[in-house]
């Protein structure tokens, strides 16, 4: 039985998980189908479409971050340029000078992404580590500024817009309804994810990992790390371009936002929070952040603060992200000992919840003090309006935050002890 504990999870089980995820993707529009109006929920469709593009985008980013150890601060450039080109493709299609069906336009966007990936990669791949981060930051700012400045290609500050129904379709679809676009995105997401998964299993993918771990040793094995970086960069441009193409098809407008530093920053957050050391990490990250973006942003003015704090927490305490946290439970789960963590987790959750309430209370109270007041809004909780200028809510918040924090720290230590004991025990048995 101990043999089983040392083995990685079964392939078939992983396959089932993937299949389930795709199935959820397929079913989602119908789960939120409004039978009265006979329409899908626009909110859900937009969110799911956004998720699809972001999954592609962050997976392509992870070809650099997780797989090659390259920190790019300008990845949105490849995404956005793919988007800009797609708008031009669609416009050309409107003039009947671009006879490619809409289903294949993302592929064209990918090819333009590849082209830009080759150009930018040729420049950026000369460097690694911090210099690479800086050079990509510079390229990103350069492109964003150019996007605002030039009108002919980028449309200046207003961006360029198009009509996706310009293009023909392989299946005779009009793509007027967003549910059709959603399924197109879903199909491309699956294809792109499979493509990137395939790349990790090729010699280039293996050498990308090798140069990440020890670029000097890779040289003494006959490989030029610069060439490896360049190829990874260019190929990741291909997939980012597909994402950008889908973005242009969905929103029918591309502005400099799509190449901007903000989007580049976003993909860093998504990928890292999801877990850069695992292939599926960025998928989790993209889904989670898009969910937060769609859900939390409706509830709170300050939702980006929560994302930022989550990110910093991950950097400090869980450098391998959500996927890493899940993965760490693997050995225990396979040994059938996950149940032992139930009580510790419950004990952990109470102070964690208190601290969370305290923290979000502090953030929200502050936000209503300033932005809320400016907008004439009031903080309403359980049907009661909270007076943010009175001391009571602040005191409650402070008690929750500080008290909960101290309690949480103690519980964390206790939890770490139990965790270590369980894993040590597991190790002893398997030896």
């Amino acid at each position, binding site marked *: 039985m101990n043999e089983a504990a040392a083995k*990685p999870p079964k392939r078939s089980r992983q396959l089932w998980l993937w299949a389930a995820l795709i199935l959820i993707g397929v079913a989602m529009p119908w789960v939120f189908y409004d039978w009265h109006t006979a329409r899908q929920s626009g909110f859900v469709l937009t969110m799911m479409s956004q998720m699809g593009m972001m999954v592609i985008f962050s997976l392509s980013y992870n070809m650099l971050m997780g797989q090659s150890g390259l920190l790019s601060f300008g990845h949105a450039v490849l995404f956005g340029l793919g988007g800009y080109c797609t708008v031009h493709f669609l416009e050309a299609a409107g003039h009947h000078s671009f006879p490619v069906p809409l289903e294949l336009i993302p592929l064209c966007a990918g090819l333009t992404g590849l082209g830009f990936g080759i150009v930018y990669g040729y420049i950026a791949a000369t460097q690694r580590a911090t210099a690479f981060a800086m050079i990509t930051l510079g390229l990103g700012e350069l492109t964003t500024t150019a996007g605002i400045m030039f009108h002919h290609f980028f449309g200046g500050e207003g961006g360029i817009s198009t009509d996706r129904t310009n293009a023909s379709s392989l299946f005779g679809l009009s793509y007027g309804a967003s549910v059709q676009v959603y399924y197109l995105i879903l199909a491309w997401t699956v294809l792109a994810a499979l493509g990137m998964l*395939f*790349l990790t*299993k*090729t*010699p*280039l*993918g*293996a*050498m990308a*990992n*090798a140069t*990440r*771990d*020890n670029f*000097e*040793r*890779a*040289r*003494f*094995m*006959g*490989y*030029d790390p610069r*060439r*490896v970086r360049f*190829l990874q960069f260019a*190929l990741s441009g291909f997939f980012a371009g597909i994402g950008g193409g889908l973005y242009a098809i969905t929103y029918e407008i591309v502005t400099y936002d799509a190449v901007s530093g903000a989007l580049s920053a976003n993909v860093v957050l998504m990928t890292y929070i999801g877990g850069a*050391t695992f292939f599926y990490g960025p998928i989790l990250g993209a889904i989670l952040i898009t969910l937060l973006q769609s859900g939390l942003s409706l509830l709170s003015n300050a939702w980006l603060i929560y994302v930022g704090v989550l990110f910093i927490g991950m950097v400090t305490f869980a450098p391998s992200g959500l996927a890493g946290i899940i993965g760490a439970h693997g050995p225990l789960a396979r040994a059938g000992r996950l149940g032992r963590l139930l009580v510790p987790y419950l004990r952990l959750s109470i102070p964690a919840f208190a601290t969370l309430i305290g923290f979000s209370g502090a953030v929200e109270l502050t936000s209503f003090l300033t932005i809320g007041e400016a907008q004439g809004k009031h903080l309403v909780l359980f049907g009661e309006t909270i007076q943010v200028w009175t001391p009571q809510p602040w005191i409650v918040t402070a008690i929750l935050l500080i008290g909960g924090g101290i309690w949480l720290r103690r519980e964390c230590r206790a939890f770490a002890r139990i965790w270590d004991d369980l894993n040590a025990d597991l190790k002893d048995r398997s030896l």
Partner: protein
Amino acid sequence: MEAPALSLKNVRKNFGPVEIIRGVDLDIARGERHAIIGPNGAGKTTLFNLISGRFPISSGSIALNGTRIDQLPPQNISRLGLSRSFQITSIFHRMTVFENIRCALLWSSGYRYSFWSPLWTQKALNRQAEQLLDELNLASRRDLQAGLLSYAEQRALEIGITIAGGATVVLLDEPTAGMSHSETEYAQALIRRVTEGKTLLMVEHDMGVVFGLADRISVVVYGQVIASGKPEDIRNDRAVKEAYLGALTE
């Protein structure tokens, strides 16, 4: 006459004003097992770094099988069939042991930068990697992250990565450093086995290993070769004894 496997002619290297390697001449015949010994700071590792292309030389020339290599970057030297190990273990920590070995096999198996051939279908390559793991006695650690191996296992992996690519000239930098007595014996046998038929140049402090393995020995002191010859000659060389032991007791 056949060109020597490795030939150094008046190789010099200075870092700023300091000359670390002060004119080294060394010829190593094909198939020879050659050990370099000398006190700490004599420039042995620097010599390795120069031969393998990690640092550029200041003057002189280095030839591998008759081809000049002193202006080439490390990857090109490696492609010509020279491979090296590192004194400080230099493996791919976050990859599995199997992946480490397989990566080392990739270039020489002709895969280059391929992003179209899925590795799981490359039967010959995978079989070769498994075989090498068996030889290194690491088969049971196949799927473990290399960073989690014990020290001696990491050293074995280091040697494995070095010889995997089928290099004809192998440079080993203190392969047994930091090993216990029994581990050293094991490593010595391993080195003998895997370098069969190859040219071996090694830096080593353990005299047991040196005299057990080497066909010839060179003594480097202060960036110069002060003696070169068969083990028994070196053992009895007066100058070596004085210089080497003198330097050791300094």
